[in-house]
C-alpha cells in the first residue's frame, strides 16, 4: 500500500471534505476541498493514513460508490450518519480535515484569529480584578488538620 494517498483517493477525499465543510461566501470561509487545504490534509495525515483510507472506503461503500453524484443534502446526511457511529476511522478523517482547515490563514482571519504560531509573540491575558477573591480570603481554614485532637487542640 502506498505511503501517500493516490490521485483517485485524493479525488474522493476532496469530494468528502468539500461536503463536510462547504464554502460560505457570506462568512468568507473556503471549503475544505480548497486545493491548499486539501494539499495540507494530504501532507499532514501521517500516521492516520490507513484510518483515513478506511474512512474514505467506508463512505464510498455507504454511497454505493457514487458519493460524488449525491446532492448536498444526501452527502451531509450520509457523513453525519457515518460520523455518529464513531470509530477510529471516522475520528481520524475528521481530525485530519479539521486540523488542516482550522490552521488555514483565510479561515483564521475570517474567524477573527491571528494566523500565526503562538511562539514567539505569545498572547496577552487580562489580569482582571483580584478583589473578586475578597469573598474567599476571610474564610477560616477548612482543610482537615490531622494534628488536631478531638478537643480541637494540636
Amino acid at each position, binding site marked *: 500500500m502506498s505511503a501517500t494517498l493516490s490521485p483517485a483517493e485524493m479525488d474522493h477525499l476532496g469530494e468528502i471534505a468539500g461536503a463536510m465543510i462547504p464554502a*460560505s461566501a457570506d462568512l468568507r470561509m473556503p471549503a475544505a476541498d480548497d486545493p491548499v487545504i486539501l494539499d495540507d490534509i494530504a501532507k499532514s495525515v501521517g500516521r492516520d493514513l490507513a484510518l483515513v483510507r478506511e474512512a474514505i472506503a467506508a463512505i464510498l461503500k455507504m454511497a454505493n460508490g457514487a458519493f460524488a453524484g449525491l446532492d448536498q443534502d444526501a452527502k451531509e446526511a450520509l457523513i453525519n450518519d457515518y460520523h455518529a457511529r464513531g470509530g477510529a476511522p471516522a475520528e481520524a478523517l475528521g481530525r485530519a480535515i479539521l*486540523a*488542516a482547515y482550522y490552521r488555514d490563514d483565510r479561515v483564521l482571519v475570517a474567524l477573527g484569529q491571528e494566523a500565526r504560531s503562538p*511562539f514567539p509573540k505569545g*498572547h496577552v*491575558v487580562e*489580569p*482582571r480584578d483580584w478583589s473578586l477573591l475578597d469573598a474567599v480570603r476571610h474564610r477560616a481554614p477548612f482543610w482537615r488538620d*490531622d494534628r488536631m485532637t478531638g478537643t480541637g487542640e494540636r
Partner: protein
Amino acid sequence: MAGNERVDVLIIGSGASGAAVAWSLAETKMRILCLEQGDWVKPTDFPSNGRDWEARRFGDFEIRPNLRGRDTDYPVNDDNSLMKVANFNGVGGGTIIYTAHWPRLHPSDFKVKSLDGVADDWPIDYWALERFYEENDRMMGASGLPGDPGVPPRHPPMPPIPLGRTGAVYAQAMNRLGWHWWPSDTTIATTPYDGRAQCINLGHCTPGCAQGAKASTDITYWPLALRAGVELRTRCRVREIVTDEHGMAAGAIYYDAEGREHFQPAEVVIMACNGVGTPRLLLNSASARFPNGLANSSGLVGRNLMLHPWPVVSGYVEEEMDGARAPITSMWSKQFYETDPARDFVRGYTLQFGRGAGPVTEAIGSTAAGHLPWGRGHHGIYRQLLNPRASIGVACDDLPEEHNRVTLDPELKDSNGIPAPRIDYAISENTRRMMEHGIARAEEIMAAAGATRVHTSRTVLNYPGHLLGTARMGTDPERSVVNEWGRSHDVKNLFIVDGSVFVTGGGVNPTSTIQAVALYIADQMKQRLANLFD
C-alpha cells in the same frame, strides 16, 4: 554484552522523581548515573513554534504513548481500562507534557484509614514532607498566592498566573454560590525565575513550553545535577535489574540506541520510572531467586494502581473567554475535597477550572461531542463555540484496590523485545458516586455562570490517568513493597522514588508530591549512608 564501569548510584528514569533525587544526591560526591530511554527535547522541538501547534497534540506530543508512538515509547495494553495511560519518555519525563498544575496532597490524604476508615495510612505524614514540598517549590519555581484557606500554608516564590477573562467568569459564579475558589498554584514562571523567562501565554502548556516558562526537570533540576557531576545517558532502555548471589541488586541490563545490550553495575539502584514503568521493570526482573518479580514478596508489585478518574463538564457562556491564549489552568476549588459524612462517598475531589480550547481542538472536541455538525450548518454553529467555552475538571480521589493493576502482557513487546505492561483497571463504586457528585456541582457552577450547551465527559479525550500506587510504601513487608523511606523490603540496595510508592492518590495532580517524596527519600538516604543496607 558490553560491560560498563561500576557506579555508586544508578537511577533509572530522568523525569520528575529521577531528576530530583539525582540533584539531591549529587552533593554526596558519589558517582551517579541516570539511564533515560528517551532524548533531550529542545525548545525548538515544541509545537508552539509552528502553525501545526494544535495538530501535534494529537501526534508526536500526544500524551498517550499508544497514540504518540515515538520510537522512544513503549506500548501499553490498556484495553481493559476506561482510563488510558499518559507518560512521556525523554529527559524530564512526564514534566515535559504535564499541565504544570501544582496542588499538593492534603494532610488527610496521608491518613485515610485513621480518619475515614478506608484503604491504608501512609507511613509518613504531610508534615514530614512539608519542607521538601517547599524546597521543591523553589527548585521547580512555583507560582501562586499564599493565604488559601482550603490548603495548608505554602510559600510559592512567584505571584499567580493571571485570572483572565475565563477566571473572572468562574470567580463570579463561585462567589454567587458561596463556594471556595483560589488561583491555582502552577510551575509556570510568572516572573523571570532562576534563568527562566516568564510566561508569555503561548497557550496550553501540555505539549511543552518553547519559552521555557513551564518548569520541566530538563530545565530545572538537570542542569544543576549535571553541573554537580551526575552523568545522564539518553536512549538507554533498561530491560531488567540483575541481582547477585546475596540477593542484592547488582546493576541493570539495558539497550542503547543501536540495540546493543549493556550491563551497568551499581552499588545502589533507584527506580524512577513512574507507576507503570517501575512495576513493569520489577516484573521483568524475575529470576530463580525472585520468581514473582523483584521486590515482590508481598505480591503487591503492580497492584493498587490509581489513575485519578477525571470527568470534565463543559459549557459555553455569553462572552469571549481566554480560549487557548493562556495556560489551561486558572483556579481550583477545595470546597468538596474533604470527607463529608452527609455524602454517600468518602474522601473528595478538587474542582479545576480550565481556560478553553484553540480553533482545531474546539472543532475536534465539538464534533466528537456531537455539537458541531458536518455540512452547511458547520460554520454557523462553530462561530458560537469558538472561545466562549468553559470547562471544569473533577479530580477525584481514587482509592487503592488490589484488582487494579499492572502486569506483563503475554504477547505485546516494545521495539527491543521487552514485554510491555498490561493495565486492568475499573472505577470503584465510591469513586463513581464521587464523580457524579462532582459533575452535579460543576453543572451548578455552569448554571451560575450562565452557560448553555452544558455537557459532561466522564472519561475524556486527552485526560488519561496519573500513574500511582503500584509499589506502595509501608512498614509491613507483607502489605507494602518499600519501607517508609523508599527502600525495598526485599532488596536492601534497591529504592523506588516515583509515584509507585503512593499509598493513596488524593484528588490532585501528583507531581509536586512525587517530587517531595523523592527529595524526602534522597534525604533519608543521605542521613543513612553509613548503614544504608542494614
